């Protein structure tokens, strides 16, 4: 797993992550007991719930990094790249959340989708950050990209509570749905807790690498002209 973006820090986190993931899968798929009500379906929740938490964490990091970039005293493209890397991982985790949620719904209620407030808002968040990533791809200088996407990220922070509130008002979570999620036993709470830890390690590992890849991408873009000129000169001297 070692690569050009690895450092002792990422290797340490990477090893911890892999060990954690092995334990997580072993426990989630085999060692943990079936739920009294949901039987095997609860195992999907072990992925679904931590994944949702991490997606939210990732988007918060994006928002904070965006603010850090916009504030003159801490302006640095590293914040911009961190925002981008975190948003990408956030979209990944949000996709996993939606997918596992859908499968869990199929197992528990027989339907792949419900129009309740939680599911709807999650899908909305997913699309919103896809839009953020699209804005990052609009081109221009690194600083233009950084400023543009930072503003978009902060506008997302503004719009998400509005959407959450209006959707919640539109389709309040019904009583029977919260009961259907069941009471969680201690062992399952423990599994979810461990899942959150393992996924957080994975998140940190991913953004450390991804942020460095983005830095290399920016450096390549900056060097692009230099390289082209150097290649031209080489051709000319032959």
């Amino acid at each position, binding site marked *: 797993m070692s690569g050009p973006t690895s450092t002792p820090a990422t290797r340490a986190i990477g090893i911890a992550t892999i060990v954690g993931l092995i334990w997580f899968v072993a426990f989630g798929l085999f060692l943990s007991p079936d739920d009294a009500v949901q039987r095997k379906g609860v195992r999907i929740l072990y992925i679904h719930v931590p994944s949702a938490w991490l997606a939210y964490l990732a988007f918060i990091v994006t928002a904070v990094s965006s603010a850090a970039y*916009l504030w003159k005293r801490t302006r640095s493209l590293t914040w911009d790249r961190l925002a981008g890397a975190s948003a990408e991982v956030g979209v990944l985790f949000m996709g996993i959340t939606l997918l596992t949620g859908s499968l869990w719904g199929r197992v528990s209620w027989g339907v792949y989708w419900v129009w309740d407030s939680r599911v709807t808002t999650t899908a*909305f968040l997913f*699309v*919103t950050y*896809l*839009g953020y990533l*699209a*804005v990052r791809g*609009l*081109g*221009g*200088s690194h*600083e*233009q990209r950084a*400023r*543009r996407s930072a*503003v*978009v990220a*902060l*506008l997302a922070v*503004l*719009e998400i509570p*509005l*959407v959450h*509130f*209006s*959707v919640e*008002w*539109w389709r309040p979570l019904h009583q029977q749905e919260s009961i259907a999620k069941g009471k969680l036993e201690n062992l399952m709470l423990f599994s979810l807790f461990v899942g959150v830890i393992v996924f957080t390690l994975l998140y940190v590992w991913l953004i450390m690498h991804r942020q460095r890849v983005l830095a290399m991408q920016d450096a390549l873009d900056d060097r692009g002209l230099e390289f082209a000129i150097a290649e031209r000169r080489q051709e000319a001297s032959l």
Partner: protein
Amino acid sequence: MTSFAVTKLVAAKDLRIELRSRVLINQVLPFAAITMVLFAFALDQDDLLVRVAPGLVWLATLFSMLVVVQRSFAVEAGDGALDALRVAGVPAQGIFFGKAAALAVQLLVLETLLFAAAFVLYSSRFDGAGVFLLITSALAASCGLGLVGTLYGGLTTGTKGRESLLPLLLLPVVAPVLIGATRATEAALGVGRISMQEGWAWVALLVTYALLFGIGGSIGFGPLVDDTA
């Protein structure tokens, strides 16, 4: 020149351009009308149409808004007018509120005609008791739409195929307006099991939305349209 004076000038300019070119009337309105007709083809049941008419009117408004927003910035792009204004030191806030106001006015005209179309095409009924709610909710919704439309329109204007990004960015943002305006309209028209009181609560949401994006947009619009590094 104060921001407020700039706002009035920009709004008047945009509306004057619209009055002379009549793009809204000649192009957007027929598009919205066709959309309303297509809804009827797709949904195929007359009693269902009455029930969902409020939602359809606001959906048609949102889709048409995409065209109106792009038009609002296309009139600037031709001569680089927006950049010229910014370079001349015109406050971005003034431009933002001016264009948002013009956009809101155009949307209100559109909505009025769409509601009239709904009464004709979908046999919506109206008993007068909800007229105040109807007008207030349309005003609040249009203000919100004008503000976010100008904000994201400014972001996606320009070269290299940015305009295709406008729907992806704008439609999720206006979801609360769609929800709120539709519910308030349902209450005003007496459709569905929603009380007038609840309708007014939704209007409160629409006003909050407009306020928040008015503030957020006035701060964010400048950085978004200034393409200098």
